């Protein structure tokens, strides 16, 4: 079970709702993934429409909505977006995203930390998208974030765990769930992230841009489960240090 703040989830896969070819495909992919947490951009919401392409199909499903602040370039804008989202969606859960870098959409560590601190004080459950920086992740934890969401690679890059060495430190040190966000382009990347000990992963582009997003969502779900099971079981190279019996252990025993 994945526990974030006061909620538990059976699935360790989070989905993004953008980039799908149609609202129906998005719905089917979410269903096929068994995911229970779906993020959606506040800037995409059309609240004056009785039936829109994003919120309406998600509301019809039994998932926890995780509005995000995509588009915000500063802490101030992100806090404003968060308040709008809380009012519109009646949830205090928030994926904090501040990426002022227009080309690679890299998160701004300084503004993210500032915003996170304010949002926690305002009563939000804050899940910040951030760089794979171990110190930043500890600082985000200290200001009260419910999880941290370091990137595996640039958003939408499908490059996998480019930040692996830093992620290992982050996971080892964390006292909140570490959710690997961004860059996971294949189920094998998701499995690898879970094998490292990530609490969960978030995927969008790799599923939405696939020729068969429903099958791909299912594949990611299986990979996340497999990776997590492997981590729980303990990977071979993690526990092969203690060698059962050998001439050397006999020698040691005799000392």
């Amino acid at each position, binding site marked *: 079970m994945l526990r974030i703040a006061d909620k538990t989830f059976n699935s360790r896969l989070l989905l993004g709702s*953008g*980039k*799908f*070819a*149609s*609202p129906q495909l998005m719905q089917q992919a979410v269903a096929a993934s068994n995911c229970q947490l779906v993020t959606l*951009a*506040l*800037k*995409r*919401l*059309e609240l004056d429409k009785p039936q829109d*392409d994003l919120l309406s199909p998600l509301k019809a499903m039994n998932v926890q909505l995780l509005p995000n602040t995509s*588009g*915000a*370039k*500063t802490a*101030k*804008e992100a806090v*404003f*977006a968060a308040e*709008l989202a809380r009012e519109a969606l009646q949830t205090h859960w928030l994926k904090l995203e501040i990426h*002022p*870098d*227009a*080309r*690679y959409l890299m998160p701004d560590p300084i503004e993210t930390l500032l915003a996170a601190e304010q949002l926690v004080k305002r009563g939000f459950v804050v899940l910040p998208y951030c760089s794979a920086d171990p110190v930043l992740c500890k600082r985000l934890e200290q200001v009260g974030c419910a999880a941290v969401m370091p990137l595996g690679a640039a958003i*939408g*890059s*499908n490059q996998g765990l480019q930040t692996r060495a830093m992620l290992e430190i982050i996971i080892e040190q964390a006292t909140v769930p570490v959710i690997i966000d961004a860059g996971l382009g294949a189920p094998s990347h998701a499995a690898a992230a879970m094998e490292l000990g990530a609490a969960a992963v978030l995927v969008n*582009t790799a599923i*939405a*841009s696939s020729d068969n997003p429903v099958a791909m969502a299912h594949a990611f779900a299986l990979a996340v489960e497999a990776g997590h099971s492997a981590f729980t079981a303990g990977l071979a190279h993690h526990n092969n240090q203690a060698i059962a019996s050998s001439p050397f252990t006999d020698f040691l025993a005799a000392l």
Partner: protein
Amino acid sequence: MIAVADITTSYDGGFIAQWQHQNWQQLQLYSRSFSAIQVQHALQKQQLNLSDLQTLLSPAAAPFLPQLANKAQLLTRQRFGRTVQLFAPLYLSNLCANECTYCGFSLSQKVKRRTLTTAEVEQECRAIKAMGIDQVLLVSGEHERKVGIDYFCQILPVVRRHFSQVQLEVQPLSTDDYRRLKQAGVDAVMLYQETYNQLAYQQYHLKGKKSDIHWRIDAPDRVGRAGIDKIGLGILLGLTDWRTDAIILAQHIRYLQKHYWQSRFSLSVPRIRPCSGGATVANPISDKELIQLICAFRLFAPELEISLSTRESAQFRQHVVPLAISSISAGSKTQPGGYSVEPENLEQFSIDDNRSPQQVAEALLRQGLQPVWKDWEPFLGRA
């Protein structure tokens, strides 16, 4: 070998300093000097430099159009997903103090002139909204005195109330004016250079402020300094050698991306359309060449937003949009008051795709592309 000049790191001079060092003739000659092997090499690269782009724009790349289009489509899906943004233009005024030989709004054109009042702007906004459109592009001729910064600041609060995103395509303004516009609610500024060829530029732009090529080339730097979220660049295809114009445009984009890293960039590559001025096209670009141009830019800059206007036919748009396009206009009227106030007036150029936004959206969905009506909030980008 005369390769395309490197991006300098100089800041103060703006892009114009770099542009002044370009030798158009040499670039044009060089643009034809590539081989099929070089094209294949460029097609296989992950990150393309300006020289790779030149290769893909060259005549040698023409036989590789299917491969180029295939790669462009993959990159477009990766960056933008299976979605396309929809917007519509709102023509505010056809007053113009410029004389441009290809344009139906030119000073000497005997057309009925009008500038929408604030009430009329509101009426047009309502008509556009009624079509389902939520992202608007404000357009005007260039008349500094009557349709200048004060006019824009007067109508913007009205427009802002109706739309989630407001883009502006008007005469180049000063940095201070762009700062005011940012505050007043402009999210994006489009500044089409038409051409970077100084000689050709002077032949097409005879009178008015627009004949000052320096003021225009420097304008995207001014928008960047003002911190506006999105900067739109483009060239008008048909004026001169498109390959050379395209490579200088690419240099311009790269320069701006480095210096104004918080701004997004969009590209528009309109072809000259017949207008009431009876323009003849001196350097036409074929359909295939236009596709080559668009797809080559996608490989060069996967993050670039590329739009395609209703100047192109529904059939052309249907085939090209899935390859590399991230936003399209729909239901467009290209005259002030065209939606509701006075629908019979003259157009700036003729429209080739007359489908309604709903029809365009349905066609997109049939192609496996989701129309995106809204992707911004008025409070974003004001700080």
